[in-house]
């Protein structure tokens, strides 16, 4: 009885301690994430345009139904998925290849791994500037190289037409996202015991067979994590669009992130902007759950 009482008191005090210790962090997160999220839900249910003050009113789900019946939503949604699927594919394939290389033992491997942090540390806005420079139609290094190699006969504005603009957008975006994915996959590779490979070699398995039947299955859970995270990030893309293409040419790179920005901060329609942002949030969450369930079930099998 005595000890039970002491235990309860101890637990109470631990709970109180936890509350006090975590209070600052919880307050900051609540003030800048939870409260704004509540307001965003509120705004999305209202007619709320800063250009027409005094006309704010509750309209239920009208903003949502308006978007869902409008090609101004479906077209950017399609563009967003084109971009995101392309980016996830490029990031995962290249990081897997790089991780396999860095999993080999060779002098200089550590330096190469450290240098991966250079693209990783570059802010997305500067990255956009960098690629704008590399792809410049008059001065761009890539144009000069392609010309000298005889691939093109005159300089190209690759950011000025489809599909090249989407391809280069994906490449530019992926360049700073590959390093982290590589490090994650590398850490996954390093958990695979070496003797599995040795016994496979004894059994006569070739390089490709070892990759297919040992590496890939054992890397599956880390691959799932990378795919889910990269998908979530890519669906929310905005920074690089702002600097590199501004949604253009002719809406070719108008992703949902860009639509939210123009709707809200150029047209000043906060109700419409909030509701499409909610839709993007729901889609992102839905994709994350879908991938998680799908990939997780694969792991169990």
């Amino acid at each position, binding site marked *: 009885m005595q000890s039970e009482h002491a235990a309860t008191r101890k637990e109470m005090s631990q709970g109180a301690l936890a509350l006090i*210790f975590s209070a600052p962090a919880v307050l*900051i997160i609540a003030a800048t994430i939870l409260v704004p*999220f509540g307001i965003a839900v509120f705004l999305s249910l209202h007619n709320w345009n800063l250009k027409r003050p005094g006309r704010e009113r509750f309209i239920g789900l009208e903003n949502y139904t308006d978007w869902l019946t409008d090609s101004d939503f479906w077209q950017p949604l399609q563009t967003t998925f084109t971009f995101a699927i392309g980016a996830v594919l490029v990031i995962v394939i290249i990081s897997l290849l790089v991780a396999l290389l860095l999993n080999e033992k060779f002098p200089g491997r550590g330096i190469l791994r450290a240098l991966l*942090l250079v693209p990783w540390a570059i802010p997305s806005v500067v990255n956009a500037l960098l690629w704008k420079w590399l792809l410049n139609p008059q001065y761009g290094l890539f144009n000069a190289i392609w010309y000298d190699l005889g691939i093109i006969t005159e300089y190209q504005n690759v950011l000025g037409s489809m599909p090249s603009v989407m391809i280069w957008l994906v490449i530019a975006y992926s360049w700073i996202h590959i390093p982290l994915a590589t490090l994650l996959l590398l850490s996954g590779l390093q958990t695979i015991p070496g003797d599995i490979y040795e016994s496979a070699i004894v059994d006569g398995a070739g390089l490709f067979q070892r990759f297919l039947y040992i590496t890939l299955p054992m890397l599956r859970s880390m691959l799932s994590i990378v795919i889910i995270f990269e998908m979530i990030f890519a669906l929310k893309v905005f920074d690089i669009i702002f600097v590199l293409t501004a949604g253009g040419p002719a809406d070719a790179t108008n992703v949902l992130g860009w639509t939210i920005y123009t709707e809200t901060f150029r047209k000043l329609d906060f109700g419409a902007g909030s509701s499409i942002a909610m839709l993007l949030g729901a889609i992102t969450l839905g994709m994350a759950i879908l991938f998680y369930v799908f990939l997780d079930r694969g792991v169990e099998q």
Partner: protein
Amino acid sequence: MHQHSRLRLTIIYFFAAVLLIGTVGPFLWLVSSSFQYERQLLNRPPQWLPNPIVLNSYREIFEGAVLGEESGVPYQSRIFLGSFGNSFAIAGSVAVIAVVVGSLAAYPLARLNFRGRNVLLFGILASRLIPALSLAIPIVLVAKQIGMSDRLITLVFINLSFVLPYVIWLLQSYFKTIPMELEDAGRIDGCSRLQVVIRIILPLARPGLTSAAILAFLVAWGEFLFALLLSETPASYTSTVVVSLFATDVDVSFVSIITAGVVSVIPPIVFALIFQRYIISGLLSGSLKG
């Protein structure tokens, strides 16, 4: 066997060279371009290394900051250095506060046994699932209303809420690796919980704290959306905002634009390379120990 391993190394180094060019090549070209004359940039074949080394665009940034309009340099060059200072102030504050507040929150998650522990941890992490774009709208609206727009402190708080979930996750997994016996010994000696955290846990967790601080700094340094939306005057621009102003302006010389880009990534790249061990272990701890 010897022949085999030589072939293996040759293949490896071929791919390593490709990787090296792909990793640092684009950035090195940006650096090289920043030291050239504008007209040299049109040379074909491209002039890989600057000759002579031209510092005009770097001087522009400093003269512009000191002399203002008199210097005659482009508007963006004049405000760049100030924005660089703002980024430093914001990212530095975020790093320090995130580690202090984050350690406090991470300790009970790692060590205490209380009801709602998992709910708290999950809630903190789940807050990152909400897209920043949907939060941007109410935050801008409210900030303007209560006079918090166009102030650096607002950006500090917003960045904090973005990095805290990650910092807390990282630190609580790090704290768990510290032997419980050391803490018990401190408790027997009469230390309070807070004293235990300050005197025993934090000194032992220095590598974890370092990686958390660096990651927080880098995230805050690179933040763009809120810096763009919440700054109204050049006095509160961050370097990412000025870089975007450069990059979307067609009238500024390329060398000035490129130089701003190079200068604005010096802090993150230098930090990343100096603290690369901490960063790599920090980046991986979340997924490995999770």
